[in-house]
């Protein structure tokens, strides 16, 4: 299983968001859990949009001569700017209106970072095990 594939990361994001929201509901309270859920949904959707923008950039840039790469760059820049504006507007509204718990929002926004760190740790552990296995690599672990 490839932990660092986009599909695994996307599924992992939702799983970790659900776990964080449930833990927050149980350990802190409903208002904090709502903040975690809202922040997490925003962060995960932002990650999806980033992935789509990068895929679009790669698809548009492929097969084009270098002098015609300006359209792909413009497409990516517009997508990035739109994404930033939407995220800024939503966070501005949430914090400014005081509708959600601010610390919960920060925890929710950390969902993607947490997923990436866990995926990196899982991938490293997998690689170490593979290297230490006699049939796959050297007979001893590298470190």
């Amino acid at each position, binding site marked *: 299983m490839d932990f660092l*594939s986009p599909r695994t990361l996307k599924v992992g994001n939702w799983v970790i968001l659900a776990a964080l929201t449930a833990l927050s509901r149980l350990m802190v309270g409903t208002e904090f859990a709502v903040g975690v859920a809202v922040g997490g949904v925003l962060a995960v959707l*932002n990650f999806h949009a980033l992935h789509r923008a990068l895929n679009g950039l790669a698809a548009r840039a492929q097969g084009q001569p270098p002098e015609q790469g300006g359209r792909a760059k413009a497409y990516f820049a517009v997508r990035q700017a739109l994404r930033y504006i939407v995220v800024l507007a939503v966070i501005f509204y949430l914090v400014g209106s005081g509708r959600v718990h601010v610390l919960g929002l920060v925890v929710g*926004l950390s969902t993607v970072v947490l997923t990436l760190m866990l995926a990196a740790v899982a991938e490293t552990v997998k690689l170490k095990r593979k290297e230490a296995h006699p049939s796959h690599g050297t007979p001893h672990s590298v470190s």
Partner: protein
Amino acid sequence: MSLRLALGALVSLLLASAAWAAEPAAAGTAAGLGSFFSYAVMAAGFGMGIAAFGTGIGQGLAIQKSVEGIARNPEASGKITVTMLIGLAMIESLAIYALVVALIILFAYPMAKPIGAALGLKM
């Protein structure tokens, strides 16, 4: 040389703003509260500016190296794109944290009421 000039301009700007903000603080509690909030606004603005500066440099370098890698070895574009996606998401989260902290300072600073009360103002 340009770095020295930029640092000098930043220091003089900070010193000037401190002197400007410290003057009304001696005038009274309302002015003191005004200087407190002017410092808060400056902190939010500078914080977000520095975060955007660092994020811009970081993302620019990441994309530059990834594109160079893809140009050298187009067959590895899938792996490079995924690694770039992970790196960009990590870098971008820092800017989002800075944005949230700046907005907390501006709109939801938890110490605003205690500080206002300490200055003798009803908030």
